[in-house]
């Protein structure tokens, strides 16, 4: 299983802060993103950062491991 975390504006648009996604061999960050974006288009419209296990990842082709925690985040607005 992949644990998907959503925060703030993305969570509000998705109507949830967490999603569970079944892991499959060879699954990449981009594939996960595309599939979730298809079911939550409004939320993913504002996603501009992704993190895997708390580390920001720029390479969307990164493979995901079973048990990974993936966050899809809108632009930050703290401070």
């Amino acid at each position, binding site marked *: 299983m992949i644990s998907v975390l959503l925060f703030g504006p993305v969570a509000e648009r998705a109507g949830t802060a967490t999603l569970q996604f079944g892991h499959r061999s060879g699954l990449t960050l981009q594939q996960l993103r595309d599939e979730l974006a298809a079911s939550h288009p409004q939320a993913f419209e504002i996603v501009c950062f992704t993190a895997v296990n708390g580390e920001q990842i720029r390479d969307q082709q990164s493979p995901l491991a079973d048990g990974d925690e993936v966050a899809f985040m809108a632009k930050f*607005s703290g*401070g």
Partner: protein
Amino acid sequence: MDGIKDAVRIQQEDFSQDEEIRALKSSSQRMGGIATFLGCARDFSEDRAVTRLGFEAYGSMALAEMNRLRDEAMTRFGLLDARIVHRIGTIEAGGQIVFIAAGAEHRGPAFDACRWMIDELKQRVPIWKKEVSPQGDAWVTPHP
């Protein structure tokens, strides 16, 4: 007597600037300059009244990134010490949001580091702000 709190924190409760500066000063007597930044909740935004703000963080990642940011600032500006405290949850207009302090031997690096840390925090730390106004709530979402 209470111990000194961590130099980098995310917390719901308010903080005391005096307490943070006292903790910073206690780390070194070579400190000749301390620069601080205090971010506060404004009661307006883009011509709308704002009654309060709500902050949400990706806690573990935000704290790790704030610690990294402090470490980088210490090295880059040769600081003697630095502190970063950010609140989450609901903050009424006029309340304190974020506090940053940089202590150095001289004022130049202290000012530069303080400015650098708040600018970097806004870019790098996963925290989101919601504005609550009489017209309703709205997350602040800068364009991707």
